[in-house]
């Protein structure tokens, strides 16, 4: 166990360093003079020279990289070319918005995905399995942004019952917050729900067909004990990992969802950053995303080793 954790920590650190190199080189690969790119709309030669010095662009590339990482680690992600505000501060404001949206979507997805996945595996060859499979297939086939548009068309324009845009923090007004989160959360969570449903279903089917389920039935246990106490417990190990791995997809979904529902979060910053060619902002956003993602993957792996006794106690099964 200890060695496993250590190995994953080292691996994650290596991945982080590689990711920062990629991001750093990515900015160098921008067409034209990086100074021009970093300056955005700025044209004044004196300002350009200042940027060149500020970013240490007159130094060797290795020195530049080390400085870049050093600044990033101190929380200095540069200044937005568009707003002239510190990138870190701007991201700091947007992040809580996105986290609330993502958390809500996650809850929706897990609730829908787990329950329909269990139903589909237990009630085989029934209308409920068929319905659950169909919904999951649609969830995988419908583009998030179009689903969003349809939802807005239906619930905000044809039958205006819910707000189609904006954001209210859960901590200032929970009711209004949930009203605003409902549509985007549903849209963002739909794809994830479909993935969770399918994974739950296949893991449950595998578990339900296994020898230990036969043993559990041979012991005289009731249906619920067999399904929840034995089969689901095994399946959750797989499902947890999948959910963790899907967080990347969730980040992609956030970008689109925030765009459609005009939520002032992280994803909106990314799109705005690209559309206005705000390179320092993009660089910062990509770095934060990659770091978060590496950390999440690490956490999922560690969580996995906690919930699976085969890894937790006594051994290197993997």
């Amino acid at each position, binding site marked *: 166990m200890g060695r496993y954790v250590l190995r994953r920590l080292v691996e994650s650190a290596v991945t982080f360093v590689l990711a920062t190199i990629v991001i750093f080189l990515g900015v160098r690969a921008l067409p034209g003079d990086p100074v021009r790119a970093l300056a955005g709309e700025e044209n004044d030669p004196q300002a350009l020279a200042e940027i060149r010095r500020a970013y240490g662009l007159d130094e060797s590339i290795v020195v530049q990289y080390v400085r870049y990482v050093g600044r990033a680690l101190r929380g200095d992600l540069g200044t937005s070319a568009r707003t002239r505000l510190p990138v870190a501060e701007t991201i700091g404001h947007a992040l809580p918005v996105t986290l609330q949206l993502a958390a809500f979507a996650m809850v929706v997805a897990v609730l829908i995905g787990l329950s329909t996945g269990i139903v589909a595996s237990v009630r085989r060859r029934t209308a409920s399995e068929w319905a659950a499979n169909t919904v999951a297939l649609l969830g995988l086939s419908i583009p998030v942004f179009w689903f969003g548009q349809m939802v807005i068309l239906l619930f905000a324009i044809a039958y205006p019952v819910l707000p189609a845009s904006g954001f209210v923090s859960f901590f200032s007004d929970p009711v209004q917050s949930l009203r605003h989160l409902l549509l985007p959360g549903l849209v963002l969570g739909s794809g994830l729900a479909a993935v969770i449903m399918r994974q739950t279903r296949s893991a449950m089917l595998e578990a339900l067909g296994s020898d230990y389920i036969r043993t559990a039935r041979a012991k005289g246990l009731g249906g619920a004990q067999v399904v929840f106490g034995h089969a689901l417990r095994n399946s959750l190990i797989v499902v947890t990992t999948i959910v963790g791995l899907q967080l990347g997809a969730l980040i992609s979904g956030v970008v689109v969802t925030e765009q459609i529902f005009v939520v002032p979060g992280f994803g909106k910053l990314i799109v705005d950053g690209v559309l206005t060619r705000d390179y320092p902002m993009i660089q910062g956003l*990509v770095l934060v995303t990659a770091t978060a993602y590496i950390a999440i993957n690490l956490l999922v792996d560690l969580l996995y080793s906690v919930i699976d006794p085969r890894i937790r106690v006594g051994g290197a099964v993997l």
Partner: protein
Amino acid sequence: MTVLELTTADTAAAAVPGSRRRALRRVLRNPLAAVGLVVVVVAVLAALLADLVAPFPYDRTNFGAALQPPSPAHWFGTDELGRDQFSRVLFGLRASVGVGVLSVALSLAVGVPLGLLSGFYGWLDPVISRLTDTLLAFPFLVLAVGLAAILGPSLATATIAIGVAQIPAIIRVTRGETLRLRGMDYVAAAVAGGAGDGVLLRRHILPNAVNALIVQATVNVPAAILGEAVLSFLGLGLRPPNPSLGGMLSSAESLFRDGPWLVVFPGVAIVLLTLALNLFGDGLRDALDPREVRR
């Protein structure tokens, strides 16, 4: 490591040589998969033959007939410039299918060799695994955004971004299969018979890993098509006036109230195409996976 186990467990298909044609027959006996295949074939033909099939050129404007609802003359209606939406959807399909196929081809071209090497040569494994992890540290859309920033938004950018984003999955599947197959008796027999590494990989391992790769591809193609739609929707894919389904939906956003059909038809086209691909893919997966058959 855990990820690898899951990818292979989910998609592992034991390759029984010569069983692939039988698998295809089994797919076609599954009505949903057969319907999926028919829809895919029709969509691909429509995309390829868009020049011949489409009633209007995709960029023919007609301000006299702007924002028309669907009618016998314009099946899917017209947009604010009077362009025929049916024709534009057909051309949009061309972009979707093209990006879907090319990006998956790109991911296979890069991912398969890396996966084979990673699974075959233990000393390369940690190196390639770290590279895979690094690539995975950038969610698909963030990667695409970064590439679009560097390369400028275009269909090629979208293709590269989607292809690159799918490389890790291909590496992992290939690596898993290579590890599995390398332990098989017939590979050991080939080694004992003096077969070199190249022969082993080309003749004994790769052909048997194909099933698993097909299964992975059935997931990747529809994902790539959705990816293209998203990128075009965000303005990072095909640039107007060239029609892409995502781009059409993006420009329809401001016309929600005046022309809801502008939002409906391109979306339905994407959904039908990806749904059909997923149905066919599911059928293919069941047919190639002997564990499913036994159930």
